[in-house]
Each structure stands twice: as C-alpha cells, then as structure tokens.
C-alpha cells in the first residue's frame, strides 16, 4: 500500500494550476457561477454607488487591482518580489502626461505609446536587476523608485517638484468621468487577468513556476531562466505603466512624491500577498480588501499617519502568519470545517492507482 502510493505520481492537490480539469463538476460550476456573479457585481458597481465620492473610491480600488495584478506577473510566477513597481507606475503616468502636453499626441494614443516606451525602458533595468537574486534584486528595485523620485523632482522639463497637469480626455461632468474611468480600469484589469490566465496554462508559465520553486534546477533542466524572467519583468512593467497612464488621465495632476512612492509599490506587494500570489484572483481580492481599508482609514483619520501604521501592521501579519494569502488560508479552513473532499479523492485515486499497478504487474508476470 505504502509502496504503491509512493511510486505513483504524487497527489498535487495543493497546486492551484493543476486541478482545473480534475475537480468535481459541482465545484467547477460553483466557481463559474461565483466568477459571473463577481463580474456582474463589479460591472454594476457604478450604478450601485450612492454618490460620486464612493464611485471615485471604486476607481482607486480598481486602479489598485490593476497594479497588483500587474505586479503578480513578476511576483506570482517567478517569486521575485519587486518593491520597485511604483517606478513603472510613475513612469507610465509621466510618459502619458509628457506625450500629451509636450508632443501633442491625443490622450489615448499617448497612453499606449507611453506604456510601450516604459516597456522598452524596463528591458535594460530588468537585465541589470535580474543578474542577482533575492535580497539584491529587492534592493535594486527599491533603488529604481528612489532614483526616479530624485530625477523627477529635479527635472524641470517634467515640472520638477511641482508636478504636472494632465488635460482630461473627456469633457463630461465629474461623476460621469469617474464612471467612464471605472469601466476603463475594469477593462484593463480583465485584459491583465486574461493574459495571466493564458500564461498560467502555457509552457512559459510552467517554466516560470519552475524558476519560482528552484531556479538552479530549472536552469539545469533547460529552462531559459533569464529570458523568461526578463519577459515577465517587461510584461509586468508594461501593465503597471498602463495602469499609471490611465491614472494620470483620470486624476489629471501628477506629483512626483506620490507617483514614485515606495508606499505605492508596497501596496502592490501587500495586496498580492494578502490575496495569494499563486492565484489568478488573489491580487484582485487583496486590492479590494486593502484598497477599501486604506480609503476608509484616509477618510476616517484624515491627514495623520494612521494609514501607514495600519498597512505596516497588516503587512507584518500577512508575512508572519499567512505568506500564502487568504485564499489558501480560507481553503484549508473550509476543508477543516466541512470534512476534506480532497483527501477522499486522493484516497480513491491512490486505490485506483494501486489497482492499475497490480494489473500491470500481473501482465508483466504473464
């Protein structure tokens, strides 16, 4: 018995990428229904929001969700934690603003061109930063934010420390403006989620996850680790820049201190970790939880530093007690409460495998 279960392929129920095809039809249909319901709820949010302020909070949370999901291209697949994605967010917003005001491009063309430029800029940065792993990588990414903050505070062409004003793309009233941008952010989020999902199921995704689990082994097995990591870094930076550019178009003014803020970068990490970096919807879930909490704290406690303390404590708690995020934590809780379905499946399949092994042995003996 013990022998059989050891020699057979190990039950990989814990890997979220695998069970898609294997889970019960019931579970699958519940997942699909939940997905549709969640999507409908998000799309209906502008109609449900009681006033323009709540609507603008929704736009901010949607922006957080896009940035966290973009961050998760790098953090979730490769396990490289970047604390520097605020740099790409800020670059995206500044590129959009500069292309509109200085080059005279139409708003959304500037947005797209800006994101492409940031993506190209991310390649040399990625080449340098990805030469090292772990701590040095984090240091390099943090430094990127700090250096860009210095540059944009001192660079008179981009407004210096006074920042920039971005002309609005639509000539509509404020609530209508929020509504349009909410849908734009949700559309961008949908694209990001779709791309993440496609990569998750592809050969590239498998290679990236191999890097996350053991980079040396992945390399020795022939995974082109550097190119894979660089591709993800660039993709992640481009999506973050798209979020930044959209933010610039929505908010209308840029201040280097807020655009190149380590805090923005840490929110992306916190949201993704809280939701669960290995899950498609993890960063989105984290963004909804953390983003709403942050906005609430800002309203409730105003200009004090309380939101800093709150996010610091939350980050520490997540890192110490649930580094895999709430999705696995809730899953294991549900399993403990309602008996473990997975265990019974596993036992069954182990028995089946034993049966198969036995019949194969009999065939071989014949």
């Amino acid at each position, binding site marked *: 018995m013990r022998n059989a279960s050891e020699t057979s392929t190990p039950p990989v129920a814990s890997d979220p990428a695998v069970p898609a095809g294997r889970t019960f039809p019931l579970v699958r249909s519940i997942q699909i229904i939940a997905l549709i319901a969640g999507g409908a709820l998000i799309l209906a949010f502008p109609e449900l929001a009681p006033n323009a302020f709540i609507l603008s909070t929704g736009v901010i949370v949607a922006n957080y969700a896009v940035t966290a999901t973009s961050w998760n291209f790098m953090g979730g697949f490769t396990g490289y934690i970047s604390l520097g994605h605020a740099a790409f967010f800020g670059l995206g917003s500044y590129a959009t603003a500069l292309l509109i005001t200085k080059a005279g491009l139409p708003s959304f063309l500037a947005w797209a061109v800006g994101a492409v430029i940031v993506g190209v800029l991310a390649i040399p940065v990625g080449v340098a930063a990805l030469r090292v792993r772990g701590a*040095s990588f984090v240091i390099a990414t943090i430094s990127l934010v700090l250096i860009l903050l210095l540059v944009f505070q001192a660079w008179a062409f981009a407004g210096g420390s006074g920042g920039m004003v971005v002309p609005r793309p639509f000539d509509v009233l404020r609530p209508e403006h929020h509504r349009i941008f909410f849908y734009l952010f949700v559309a961008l989020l949908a694209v990001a989620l779709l791309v993440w999902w496609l990569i998750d199921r592809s050969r590239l995704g498998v290679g990236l996850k191999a890097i996350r689990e053991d980079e040396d082994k992945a390399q020795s097995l022939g995974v082109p680790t550097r190119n894979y990591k660089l591709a993800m870094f660039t993709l992640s930076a481009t999506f973050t820049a798209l979020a930044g550019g959209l933010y610039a178009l929505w908010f209308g003014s840029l201040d280097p201190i807020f655009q190149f803020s380590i805090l923005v970068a840490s929110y992306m990490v916190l949201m993704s970790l809280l939701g669960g970096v290995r899950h498609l919807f993890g960063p989105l879930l984290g963004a909804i939880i953390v983003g709403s909490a942050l906005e609430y704290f800002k309203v409730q406690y105003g200009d004090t530093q309380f939101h800093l303390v709150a996010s610091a404590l939350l980050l520490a708690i997540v890192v110490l007690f649930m580094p895999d995020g709430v999705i696995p934590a809730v899953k294991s809780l549900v399993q403990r409460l309602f008996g473990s379905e997975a265990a019974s499946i596993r036992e069954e399949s182990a028995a089946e495998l034993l049966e198969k092994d036995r019949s194969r042995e009999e065939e071989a003996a014949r």
Partner: protein
Amino acid sequence: MNGPLIFQHVILGILLGGLYALLAAGLTLYFGVMRVVMIAHAAFLVLAAYLAWYANTEFGIDPMLSMIVTVPAFFFLGVAIQRLLITRLRPATLTMMSVLLTFAMALLIEGLLGLLFTGTQRRIQLGYGSASLELFGASVPVVKLIAFGLAAAALGGLYLLLKKSRFGQALRATIQHRDAAQLVGIDTDRVAGYGFGLGLATAAIGGTALSLDATIYPSLHWHWIGPLMAIIVVGGLGSIPGAAIAAMVLGVTQSMLQIPMGTTWAQTVFYIALFGTLMLRPQGFFGGRLAQRF
C-alpha cells in the same frame, strides 16, 4: 572651482562617509548572521535621532547622553526582533519575506513617529551647534566632527570586538559557515541574535550622531536607506571592509559632485553605482562567496 572649496567638500565627504560606513556595517551584520536585508535600519536610525531630540528638548540633556539608554535598548530590541520575528519565517523564503517584514517595521516606525511628533521638521539647538573649525581654508562644523568621531569610535570598537574577542570569533564563524560553527559548539542561534542586536546598536549610535547636525522628520529614513543599500551591494553583501570602503568612496564622490550638480542630482551617484555594479560585477567589488547567491 577653487582649491579650498574642493578641499572642504573632500573633508565633508569623509565625515559623511564615516557615518555611512558605520551604518553599512550594521546592515552587513544583519545580512551576515541571518541573510536578512534590514530595510528598517534607517528607520531605526531616525528613531534614535528622534529620541535624542526628545531627550534634549524635554529634559535638556545633551543628545550624546541619550546613547546611554538608546544603545542598550536598541541592542535588546535587535535580539528580540531576531529571536521573536525573523526566526518565525520559513527558511525557504526567508530572504524575500524578511525584506517585507523589515519594510513593515520601517513603515510602522515612520507612521508612529508621524503620529507622536507630527511631520514637522525638528532640529536640536546646541550651544556648539554653529561652531566650526578652520582647516587649511576649509571650514568644518564641529558637530560633523563629533558625529564622525562617534562613528569612527563605534566602528573601531566593532572591529576590535569582532577580531579580538571570543564572542567576535563565534560571530564571524557563524557568518562564515553556520553549520560548521554549530559543529564546533557555538550556539549559533544566540550568536545570531547578538549579531542582530549589535547591528541595531549601530543604528542607535548613528542616529545620535545624525541628530547633532541634521534636520529630522519621519520620512527621512528613505533618504538614508537607498544610499546604504547601494553601499552594501557595491561593497559586496556580507563584507564589512567592503562596505566601509564603498561608503567612503561614495560619500566623498557624492560630496564632490555637489559642487557642480547640486544636492539632488549628486545623490543619484549611489544608484548609478548600484546599477553599474549589478551590470559589471553583481557580487560586489569586495564581496566574497557570500554575495554570490543573494
């Protein structure tokens, strides 16, 4: 450009480099014993500066006397952080997660300082605060000399402790090869805790030195942690002499560049050095094999 101006900036650069060297040595200690990059190091530095400022304004004590309390307090706090928090993290993801954990500590300290003392800029008014020495045409503020003296004394003490004492031997053994150190009978967990405490004590001394001649505010630590991390990467993670040399070289370079470029642009030299190092020699210029994997 004239001679005395350049000379003055060289002197100021060396004085600043001394402080950088002490703080970078602290960062190196954390990294050596636990493979932890302590983002909160500069936040503790600012915390110590605030404590010195508070002692000075509330009780009228000379800021340097506050070290009698802050240095031991920070040492024990460091031991506690290592024993109670860092060791809780999973070994497999320790390096990444510890960065986030210490990042959270930095935010917490910044937020609490903001809540307690507001974001107002603070400065200690000292009787000898504006005095300066004339040295071959360069005028050097006395407080900067005192700050450098503190940093140099602390760094020298740390060197002697590491090289001459039994505990220092144990600490170096733990840094070099943890398992082997354990085999020869060193209680590596305890030594690692003390190493962490020593690192945090350097932040207490550095913070006191900083409070003497700098204007402090809660978010000041971001201006320190960037250069410090650049220094330890350029010097090679885990090498204290490397960190000290890199601190001196970069400190003087920054100070010299301030003449033609101004303060803001001069600070970018740290980050340019950082990315240059990553491209040319990712393990750092003085680092040993420790740096290779991290």
